[in-house]
């Protein structure tokens, strides 16, 4: 298909609470091309998770529209979109393998088949020996990998990832990033990725979308036309980093000043 894979068209969202109404997003528009790795970055509370949930059909916008392949999103559609959440959110009473197979089970796939597919995914993730472990028996990084495997298992064209490595230490985070890149280059999926980390954004994405402080608006869009694997020390990346930091710094200061 010609047009962009995902179109976010002027969406706004307010959350009504008992005390007041929090405007989370204000007229956000963006288009994500097929097989792009698009990163959304912005200060805490600016509506990144909300934006992702909207693309995934879990939250409906007050105004505007999200379209995938030109069709408006009206609810979750796991045939097209898979999600990785900010915390791994694994089902604690299921083993790693059965967690990975969860989406396939909801699709009605038979138990042996879905377990085979899930098992094939665990191997390359370094989790083969942990297939029958429960989430509480896994490390934070392993849990996050299981959550990613659960999203990859349903083999949708779009994967939405909400700070999947947010809870990990810097080294693990870098390794997980490399691992994710290798998957993305092989599987050629469209990825929308939320992060707090400039480094992560620059190492992974083809494009970085910076949001303003709450309510989130698109502040700037930065193309990163560099080949993979990338080197943070390279001059190209260093100058992009300076640009991006300039954009983000201002917004982060606003958030902290409140």
């Amino acid at each position: 298909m010609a047009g962009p894979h995902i179109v976010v068209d002027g969406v706004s969202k307010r959350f009504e609470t008992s005390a007041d109404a929090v405007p989370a997003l204000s007229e956000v528009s963006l288009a994500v091309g097929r097989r792009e790795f698009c990163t959304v970055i912005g200060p805490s509370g600016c509506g990144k998770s909300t934006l992702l949930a909207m693309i995934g059909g879990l939250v409906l916008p007050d105004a505007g529209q999200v379209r995938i392949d030109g069709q408006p999103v009206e609810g979750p559609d796991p045939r097209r979109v898979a999600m990785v959440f900010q915390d791994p959110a694994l089902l604690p009473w299921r083993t790693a393998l059965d967690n990975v197979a969860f989406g396939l089970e909801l699709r009605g796939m038979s138990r042996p088949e879905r377990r085979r597919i899930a098992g094939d995914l665990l191997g390359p993730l370094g989790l083969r020996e942990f297939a029958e472990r429960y989430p509480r028996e896994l490390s934070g990084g392993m849990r996050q990998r299981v959550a990613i495997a659960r999203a990859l298992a349903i083999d949708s064209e779009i994967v939405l990832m909400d700070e999947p490595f947010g809870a990990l230490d810097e080294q693990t985070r870098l390794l997980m990033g490399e691992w994710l890149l290798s998957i993305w280059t092989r599987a050629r999926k469209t990825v929308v990725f939320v992060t707090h980390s400039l480094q992560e954004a620059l190492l992974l994405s083809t494009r970085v979308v910076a949001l303003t402080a709450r309510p989130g608006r698109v502040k700037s869009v930065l193309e990163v036309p560099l080949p993979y694997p990338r080197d943070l020390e390279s001059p190209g990346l260093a100058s992009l980093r300076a640009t991006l930091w300039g954009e983000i710094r201002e917004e982060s200061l606003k958030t902290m000043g409140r």
Partner: protein
Amino acid sequence: MIGRVLAARAALGLGVVLAWEVAARARDPLLYIPPSRVLPALARLLLLRSFPLLPEHVWLTLREILVAYALAVGVGLAVGAVLGLRPTLGRVYAPLLGALYAVPSVVWYPSLMLLFGLGAASKIAFGFLLGVYPVVLAVLAGVRQVSRELVTVARAFGAGPGRVFRTVMLPSMLSTLTGGLRAGLALTVVGVIVGEVLGSTAGLGYLITYAYGLLRTADYVALVLVTLAIVLAIDAAAGLAERRARRRWA
């Protein structure tokens, strides 16, 4: 080790029985019922000599328990779900339930007999009344244990309301729920049997009051032992069902 524990328990039991025997003989064998009188009475009871209609009475009691429990579970789950899933309704009505329950339940029984008569209906109503509350409470507590994040995950992966319930809510609530269901069962049994003891024309509780009223004290104790065995059997069956549910759903 286990052998010694069992031996110690058996010794204690034997000691109590012996002490009881001695004390009862020394005082009034009719009122204190020494074990030596209970065993023959139990044999007569089980051989259907003392109460030939025992099976019918037991069967009636079991049916009353079954119906009362089915009602308690059905209504308890429904009320719990409505109060639990509608937070505003829950805030308004849940405390009311607690207040009602603080009244000793036996005070409701006379009015139940007035409403439902001396037959099975008033026993079922009383068993239901006692059994429903723990079920409602368990659902309310269970719903609170369900993580919103996990519900969102299930929705994102394509689960409709039914699958969300089955794959996320039920397993999250399971241990609380089974606890409440078992407490409800125990209280339903109590309600039905107490109801029969307080006023009825048939059932195990009725036989107990009957034997007691005629001062057939040994028969009375034998009936109590049979009741105890039935209650224990019901509880064991419930335990088995609980383990199965855990294996199946969690």
